[in-house]
């Protein structure tokens, strides 16, 4: 048992999976000697060599494209895209190929690869270094989209993603990298992809969040407990796609109310799919319209205005109160 922050926990997942399976290799910009700009791949090259931990040339499309070729051959590449805002330069490789080779080849090939990307705001960074783009990947059939919320589940989900036979997009909230330490057992753990967790039980309202927004949701639940005396249930999605509809529906059948929190812009975002899934499965239990607390539908606003754009505790509390009072 050791107390690890998310960077160390992710590093440990990579280390453990590479020890376990010689087919796992890491490639990306600055992942080798430098250990990645966030140090998630620190020391891996020293341990596993430059053939397995590859400092690639600076080209996102070829990082993903060559990894597709490696995966088709039977290797299990873990790619790092330095910031999720740069992934549009490889989006065609992800959408056209990662997601489709199993279907295109009718099962002759599959693409067991992981694409790690730091995402989200909260670190006072420039444009393309602060956005949340999970909706693009969640919408693509053939992909899985995973976003952990803390060190322990990050390690277990990354291990699961590496062992998954299908391509997994793995978002890491930059604001969580060093936010907190958590006790993590020494032995590797696996959390199933596609399963949400109830982070806190309650009966008055369901708050649904993932990644960096989980902390916001939990703090909002604290406020609602302390100031309003209501017990809010908080669900940590962990996997955006495939969506764990069962856990969402079960919760809302109990609470009758739901508020969804995400950092991505509102329209056509994950919140819309989550809300529809709840309506499909728990319509007769709903006591109020489902609310979404998200970033606004505007392009990048600059970090001087980021706090006004990204959901925070007061906005979530306010939406929850309106929902409770409906």
């Amino acid at each position: 048992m050791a107390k690890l922050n998310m960077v160390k926990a992710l590093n440990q997942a990579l280390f453990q999976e590479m020890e376990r399976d010689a087919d796992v290799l890491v490639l990306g910009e600055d992942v080798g000697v430098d250990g990645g700009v966030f140090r998630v791949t620190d020391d891996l090259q020293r341990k596993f060599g430059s053939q397995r931990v590859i400092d690639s040339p600076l080209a996102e499309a070829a990082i993903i494209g060559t990894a597709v070729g490696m995966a088709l051959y039977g290797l299990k590449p873990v790619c790092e895209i330095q910031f999720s805002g740069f992934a549009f330069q490889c989006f065609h490789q992800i959408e056209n190929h990662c997601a489709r080779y199993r279907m295109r080849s009718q099962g002759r090939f599959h693409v067991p690869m992981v694409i790690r990307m730091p995402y989200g705001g909260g670190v006072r960074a420039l444009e393309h270094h602060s956005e949340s783009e999970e909706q693009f990947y969640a919408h693509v059939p053939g992909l899985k989209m995973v976003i952990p919320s803390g060190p322990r589940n990050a390690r277990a989900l990354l291990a699961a993603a590496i062992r998954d036979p299908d391509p997994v997009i793995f978002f890491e909230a930059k604001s969580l990298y060093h936010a907190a330490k958590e006790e993590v057992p020494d032995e590797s753990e696996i959390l199933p992809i596609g399963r949400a967790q109830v982070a806190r039980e309650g009966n008055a309202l369901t708050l649904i969040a993932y990644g960096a927004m989980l902390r916001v949701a939990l703090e909002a639940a604290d406020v609602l407990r302390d100031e309003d005396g209501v017990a809010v249930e908080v669900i940590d999605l962990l996997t955006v796609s495939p969506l764990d509809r069962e856990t969402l529906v079960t919760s809302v059948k109990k609470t009758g109310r739901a508020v969804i929190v995400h950092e991505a812009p509102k329209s056509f975002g994950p919140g819309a799919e989550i809300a529809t899934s709840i309506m499909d499965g728990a319509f007769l239990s709903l006591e109020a319209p489902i609310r979404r607390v998200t970033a606004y539908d505007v392009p990048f606003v600059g970090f001087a205005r980021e706090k006004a754009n990204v959901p925070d505790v007061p906005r979530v509390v306010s939406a929850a109160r309106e929902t409770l009072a409906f």
Partner: protein
Amino acid sequence: MPRIALEPRFQVEHLSILDSEGNLDTALEPQLADTELRSLYRAMLLGRRLDERMVRLQRQGRIGTFAPTKGQEAAQIGSIFTLRPTDWMVPSFRETAAMIWRGWPIEKLLLFFAGHLEGGQPAPDQHDLPIAIPVSTQLPHAVGLAYAAQYRGDDAVVMAYFGDGATSEGDFHEAMNFAGVWHVPVIFVCQNNQWAISVPLKKQTHSRTIAQKALAYGLPGIQVDGNDVLAVYAASREAVERARAGDGPTLIECVTYRLGVHTTADDPTKYRTAEEVAMWERKDPLTRFRGYLEKRNLLEEGLEQKVDDEIAEAIRRFEATPPADPLVMFDHAYAELPADVRAQRDAMAASEPARPARPDANDSPPPGATPMRGQRLTRR
């Protein structure tokens, strides 16, 4: 601190062994066995006859849109001939002749062009990627395969196909760059057929050759007469041997010509002259190689008929394929279907009896109705 000229010892060669007049450079002539020469010609002829047959099948609505290979048989067969079955072929979408050489059954390719993904499924032991349509995006896959082969210590090499238009795409340059830096066993075979749909080579690149683009990435590039199967073979064999020996990647530019349409929904009269086509018809790769074989008394009597019979038999098998079961669409989306997708499948299974559409069914839209990239919707 003078301003000095760096003198990179770069050169780009053009290789031609058998020209369109039948002149042969005996010093460069590859030493191929009679059986090998015969099988080269047979594969080229099969590619040509099938291509012409497929155009008719498309016009009859029995298959959908496809990209004919006519004119590019030497570029395809001369290069693919140098691979072992354990090597990898990474096709674009105009490599029908080469794919048949690699063992794709004709009926399977017809099935693919009739809209059935089953036709794009490589056999379990086949080291071929399926057809890739987005231009040049398959090239990084070839580099990744080659990296993986090297990583595993296998002696496989990878041959990737693309056209002149693809050399304007970023993925081409990124793939060449990664291949150079990683020094992996990959051979980039560019079929420079002069036209990317309606855009001629001179509007595609200001480079004198495509081969020279390799030099910027630190790899050898060679231009060959792509209608001369002996030259394509010789350059490819050299590149394959170099790759297998651990001496890295090569770019081969095969200068050839698309004698037919870009796809079956294209009308080349809109952008190029009949004189130009006639000029290239005189350089037809089959005519030239046929003359070479004739002189060596290697032409097999009745070969055309044998090839046509093989094609006819394959078409019969293709048309006897059972109709597509819609539920199969859920079989290969994921290793294990997520719950919600499984529910979608179950709903389909429960809600309607399977309504399979045969490729030639009257109630289905004509297969050619779905355009490929850049395809004109009008037909001649």
